[in-house]
């Protein structure tokens, strides 16, 4: 037995792309496929459609384009990180303000990180939100400008909807932004390492507004986790000596300490939180993608289920009819509508005519059939068999009628069919059956119920 097939997020997305194409452009023909489970069928069908209709390129196009854009974004972020570091550090001055560099390299990162954290914690809905929609719109309009066929347009829209909308999109955007910041900070750190490895700077700090001790405390707080991790940091003495206005000669011993402190801060307060957030988004994206299910209630998937497992098999004839009945050609023309005078009226399973038709006896079982036969034998009057038009003239009824009329000569046999309003009419069938009763069609009477 085939194990239950789990569809990957990529497969589910491709299936949605195929759905968009089939619903909005053209249905795609697929060869009959066998699978134990519906997911297995969907997976096999997808594989066949991709191969038989050369759709691989169309479906992959938005993903490739996104990867290209994402690569460009990372490159721009890395360049921005490098440029920002060079701008902040590399210059003619030999002295660097430690906290200014930290603000330049980490300030905007920290603000945006806090903003993301707050929005993630307080945002009640689990969707990508307007930023996802905006990214979605931008990508879609760009993709449409490149290649605008019906298939491509719909495949793109479905891919973007699945990737950037809903719960998956929310974490996907998180992965993207954190990754970009990682590139920015990583490139910045590398640039800083390169600059500090090749040039010598004196690190200073100073403030007009804040007291000297405030900076010393801030440095101590910032350095404490690094120190705990065994990272070399500046000592309190070196911090005091680095204050603006102190003789620069005293800074010589603090240079290495400040350089390590700077790089440690970038790592610990910049790269590390971003890395954790990136990993978290990556995991949550994977979980959301795993949890996300195709809406099999959609008519499209219901139809596919019927193709996969038809609800019933085709009909087969087990015991064929060897003697099909020939077509009867009896025509209803110039029919009588009045019963013959003084006739003996015998009912044939009359149902609704009991009160209006005064049949001598209504034949509906063996006993009444015997009573009718006795009456006919005793009477010399013409015999009229009465039947309701809604009654189907089956073989049993016709046999009973034939038996009743058998003793009468041809001109004394009559069949009257009573037509009721709002009832199914089998008069034509009764008329067609007259030869079997030994009656010429002229001796068939059509009586409207309201006439009597």
């Amino acid at each position, binding site marked *: 037995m085939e194990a239950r097939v789990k569809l990957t997020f990529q497969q589910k997305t491709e299936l949605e792309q195929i759905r968009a194409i089939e619903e909005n452009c053209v249905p795609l023909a697929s060869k009959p496929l066998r699978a134990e489970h519906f997911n297995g069928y969907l997976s096999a069908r997808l594989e066949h459609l991709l191969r038989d209709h050369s759709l691989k390129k169309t479906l992959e196009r938005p993903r490739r384009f996104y990867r290209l854009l994402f690569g460009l974004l990372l490159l721009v972020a890395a360049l921005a990180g490098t440029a920002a570091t060079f*701008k902040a550090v590399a210059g003619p001055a030999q002295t660097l303000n430690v906290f200014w560099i930290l603000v330049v390299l980490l300030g905007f990162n920290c603000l945006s990180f806090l903003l993301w954290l707050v929005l993630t914690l307080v945002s009640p809905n689990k969707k990508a939100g307007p930023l996802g929609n905006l990214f979605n719109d931008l990508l879609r309009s760009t993709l449409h400008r490149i290649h605008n066929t019906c298939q491509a347009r719909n495949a793109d829209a479905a891919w973007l909807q699945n990737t950037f909308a809903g719960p998956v999109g929310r974490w996907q955007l998180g992965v993207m932004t954190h990754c970009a910041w990682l590139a920015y900070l990583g490139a910045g750190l590398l640039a800083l390492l390169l600059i500090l490895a090749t040039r010598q700077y004196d690190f200073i700090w100073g403030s007009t507004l804040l007291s000297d001790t405030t900076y010393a405390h801030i440095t101590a707080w910032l350095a404490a986790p690094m120190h705990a991790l065994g990272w070399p940091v500046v000592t309190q003495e070196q911090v005091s000596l680095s204050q603006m206005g102190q003789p620069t000669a005293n800074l010589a011993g603090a240079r290495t300490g400040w350089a390590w402190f700077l790089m440690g801060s970038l790592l610990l307060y910049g790269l590390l939180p971003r890395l954790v957030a990136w990993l978290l988004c990556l995991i949550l994206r994977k979980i959301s993608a795993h949890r996300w299910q195709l809406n099999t209630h959609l008519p499209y998937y219901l139809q596919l289920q019927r193709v996969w497992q038809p609800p*019933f098999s085709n009909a087969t004839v*087990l015991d064929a009819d060897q003697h099909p009945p020939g077509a009867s050609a009896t025509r209803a023309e110039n029919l009588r509508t009045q019963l013959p005078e003084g006739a003996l009226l015998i009912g044939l*399973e009359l149902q609704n005519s009991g009160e209006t038709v005064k049949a001598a006896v209504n034949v509906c079982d063996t006993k009444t059939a015997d009573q009718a036969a006795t009456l006919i034998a005793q009477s010399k009057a013409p015999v009229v068999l009465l039947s309701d038009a809604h009654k189907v003239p089956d073989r049993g009824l016709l046999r009973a009628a034939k038996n009743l009329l058998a003793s009468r000569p041809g001109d004394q046999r009559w069949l009257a069919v009573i037509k009721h309003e709002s009832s199914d009419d089998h008069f034509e069938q009764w008329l067609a059956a007259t030869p079997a009763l030994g009656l010429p069609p002229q001796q068939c009477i059509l009586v409207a119920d309201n006439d009597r």
Partner: protein
Amino acid sequence: MTDNLPILLAVVGHTNTGKTSLVRTLLRTERFGDIRNSAGTTRHVEAASILCDGKPLLELRDTPGLEDSVALFDQLQPITVKHSHGRDALQAFIAHEAELPDFEQEIKVLKQTLACHALLYVIDCREPVLEKYVFELRALSLAGRPIIPVLNFIADNPVHKKEWRQALINFNLHAVVEFDTVAFSFDAERRLYEKLQTVLEDFYTPLQNFIEARNAQWTQLKHSCAETVADLMMKAAMLRERVPQGEPLQAATERLQQQTRALEQKTLRKILDLLQFSQSDVNYVDLPVSNGQWQLDLFAPEAFKTFGVNTASAAATGAAIGAGLDLLVAGMSLGAASLTGAALGAGWSTVKRYGRELIGKASGEQVLCLDQATLSLLLVRQTRLLQALLRRGHAAQNRFDFSGASSEKNELADTSALIKRAHKMQNPAVQDNESFVTQVKTELVDWQIRAL
């Protein structure tokens, strides 16, 4: 017991009682057998299986109608005296098949009674309990198979239902099912399978699984139908037809009407396809479309919210790009790039969303859309259609008439609040509000499911 699957069911009964109709309705297809209002329409034994998990579970064998049970029993009676078991008597009778050309159809039926696990004896409840039916039951019971009487044609005027029930009790047949093949009820179908469970204990588990699968399919089918109608409502609510200044309003109105009707007819085809009916099952009457005129309203709450969120996010994106530039110059630009980016983003968002509308308004352009009354009528028509088709057997001959489904005759739950919300989607800014659009669609689906 699954080795013995499929369960073979012979559908038997007097001629023209709805045997083929029962098979069609259980298979949910119009592509089985021939249905005519005359005796002896089915003259061969035809079978089709209902599949469960792709495997045949129930094989329904449609048999010719029993037409002359009185004569048949006359022939059978002397044979039954010679055999202690009814099955042996039937086999002995069938062995003389060649000598009994008058009973060709009946013998076909008797063969199936011997071959099948159970018999579904279809009764036309418009007919009284006649002696010939008693003979039919006596002949059929010789096979020694469980008989489940199916009371058909009970929806309109079940005059003889009580009488039939009593007669069946007298015959020791208690597992009776009321199942109208024209006015279908899923509950009746479920009860039929439950009765089968009772009389075919050996097949209890596969039948239980089948009942559950059938239940799930029915729920899914209703959900799919509701999704289809909700989709139509969303598309209709979003329809917009621009009328440039100087163009006659009449032409645009006609275009809007054509689009609406095309949408409704496309939905109709989808629904018929889902429920396995054909165009001949409905009598489509054009939707009376009245159009409303859309006015640009920036301050509609949903539009305002979407506009605000979109503009804010566009501004934020612009600011983020600007901030990148600010970072490149290590903050020396004092955030000017961020500010400019935010302003450009907000401007771009506004122009993108409302530019076309504002230009149109300035040039005297009008925008037509469907009014609430038309949307309401559309919803009522589709709901009525679904209600009718979900209660329609696949043997029904009358057509569903769209002209009968108007909002004046609306007995459905109040739709005004729902329609009012859907109507808001004519505003393109509201269409962008993903959560609002999703919420309205969910409400439409839920409402439909409740109405079904």
